[in-house]
């Protein structure tokens, strides 16, 4: 039994971390806001070159066949950097669900997304407003019983503004020529929902870590009563509380990812667990980070809100805390599931 990462997994994580530190600085995110164009095509192309967008496609389709644990580690870094482009979405909600899509939808996706380099948006009742439709080749649409694929030219849509300016949301007003099927819907729906929970969980844990790091830097720098405010216990304890929450949310993310990679029948439960823990960690990170920044935390100028806004969005979509609590309870209270102290090993 081994519960640590492989060297290769750590290498991928580090590679994307240093790429994003360079290419996705707060100034570049703000530049996207300024231009009303948060999808940065150049950064997207660089990520294609790094192999990130095809990382989890099978090797015979030009991918690296990467497992979900490595993906989660990489997505955590995308959260940490506040990456605006829908890379996590493409990896987890498109590439990773292809095996579950009905054949005709798979064909339509594959003929449109150019080996994973062309973005395909996805909408679902838990995240109903697709991201960056202007930059997408098409849309996978799941409602409550059917899966559709609509090519970009076959629909009309309008932009909806998000509280996170890095997220361009859309609403589809009409569509023609949708490919549509209800075949295998429940399995597909569950695969998508689980991945949505896991993806937002991994992003949230990165975002929470970023907020703690920004706060630690700030409280070292800001002086009151003749000392850095970070030397006061009231401030230390606020940030330590967040560090505790993050520490115990992380392993839930990695377990959920592993569970998906092993097709564990409890993976839906594990993904809900991950999202619950990460949403709670991120919620406290937002509250205590803004508090540690004092009035500066309430300004547009301070970078903190770049990450805070994204965290609020990630908490809300793909099943908020309440939804996850409900899903976990349903599983725990159904007698067919064996859980608890006896069922780890």
């Amino acid at each position, binding site marked *: *039994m081994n*519960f640590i990462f492989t060297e290769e997994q750590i290498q991928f994580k580090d590679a994307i971390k240093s790429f994003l530190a360079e290419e996705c600085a707060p100034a570049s995110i703000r530049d996207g806001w300024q231009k009303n164009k948060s999808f940065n095509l150049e950064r997207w192309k660089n990520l294609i070159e790094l192999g990130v967008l095809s990382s989890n496609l099978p090797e015979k389709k030009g991918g690296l066949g990467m497992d979900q644990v490595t993906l989660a580690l990489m997505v955590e870094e995308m959260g940490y950097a506040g990456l605006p482009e829908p890379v996590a979405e493409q990896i987890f909600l498109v590439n990773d669900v292809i095996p579950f899509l009905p054949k005709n939808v798979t064909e339509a996706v594959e003929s449109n997304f150019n080996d994973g380099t062309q973005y395909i948006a996805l909408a679902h009742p838990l995240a109903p407003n697709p991201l960056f439709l202007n930059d997408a080749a098409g849309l996978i649409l799941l409602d409550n019983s059917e899966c559709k694929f609509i090519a970009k030219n076959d629909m009309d849509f309008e932009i909806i503004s998000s509280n996170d300016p890095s997220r361009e949301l859309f609403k589809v007003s009409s569509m023609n020529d949708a490919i549509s099927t209800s075949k295998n819907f429940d399995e597909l729906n569950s695969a998508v929902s689980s991945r949505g929970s896991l993806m937002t969980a991994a992003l949230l844990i990165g975002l929470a870590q970023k907020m703690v790091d920004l706060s630690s830097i700030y409280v070292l720098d800001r002086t009151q009563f003749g000392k*850095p405010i970070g030397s006061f216990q009231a401030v*230390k*304890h606020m940030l*330590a509380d967040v*560090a*505790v929450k993050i520490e115990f949310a992380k392993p*839930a993310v990695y377990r959920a990812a592993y569970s998906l990679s092993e097709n564990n029948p409890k993976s839906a439960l594990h993904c809900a667990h991950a999202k619950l*823990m990460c949403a709670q960690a991120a919620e406290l990170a937002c509250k205590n980070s803004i508090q540690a920044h004092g009035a500066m935390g309430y300004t547009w100028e301070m970078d903190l809100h770049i990450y805070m806004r994204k965290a609020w969005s990630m908490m809300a979509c793909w099943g908020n805390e309440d939804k996850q609590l409900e899903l976990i309870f349903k599983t725990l209270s159904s007698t067919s599931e064996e859980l608890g102290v006896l069922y780890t090993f």
Partner: protein
Amino acid sequence: MVTWPKEYGGRGLDLIQWLIFEEEYYRAEAPTRVNQNGVFLLGPTLMEFGTHEQKSKFLNAMATGDHIWAQGWSEPGAGSDMAAIRTTAVLEDDHYKINGQKTWSSRAAYADWTFGLFRTDLDSERHRGLSFILVPLNLPGITVRPIPQLDGEPGFAEIYFDDVKVPVENLLGGDGEGWKIAMATAGFERGLMLRSPARFQQTASKLLELYLANQDHCSPMIQAKVVEAWSQSESYALSIYHTASKMLAGGSIGSESSLGKIFWSELDHMMHQTALKILGASAELSQESKNDAAKWIKGFMFSYAGPIYAGTNEIQKNIIAERLLGLPR
């Protein structure tokens, strides 16, 4: 002591196998181990810092339960500020002469031995000049006064030392190295060994059972707490598996153990608090009754100790902020 080498009375198993053992132990609802201060704290410390003679003398007797151990850290003036220790141990020929007082000494009310820190350099201050000494509690000059606990049990005690002569071979490590050794012991206590995840997973399962049996008269707020209890105990277990694997791969456990100490102690309290809410008016019954109310109340009271012992959670938060987040002292 399943992880101890066979020559010292253990099974020579690795940490993952230890976790499996713990799962079975808690699932069977086996009792708290009377010698856990010895087995989980002093044991690993002896293996790291003890001489061959000390290991063979103490470890086997600890494993068989022939020596029950108590810890001797705190003093009336040295609680969270442990470096303020004033009990002295003066070297005279082949023995140390000990004078002073220890308090909150867990298990001293019935233990045979105590281990703790004593000031061997009288001119020293703070954490310098302290030594780690093993003391038999039946020596002349020792008085043990049990302190009745909140739960009514005589768990901890005060220990008075009046010219107590302890042979010099009972010094663990070098003279003056006590602080370093004690920090290693404290790490064991906060970290892996004493708080096996199975303990909290078992409580979470029991809590779920209790809730399902009494669901009709509970509000959705209680249900959310029950789910959180399960989720947090799972997370704690997963995190400990990761730590165990890291240690098996040659890594070590440092200030991270402070994160765990806060997490499990708050979780334990939340779970018992929730159980009492489910119990409703029977949450004051201390005799055998439906729903095991008395057990939950006992556990509830004990859960107030978690955030205090092994270094208060406030001290742990200082450690996290200073050593993990890099904030100034």
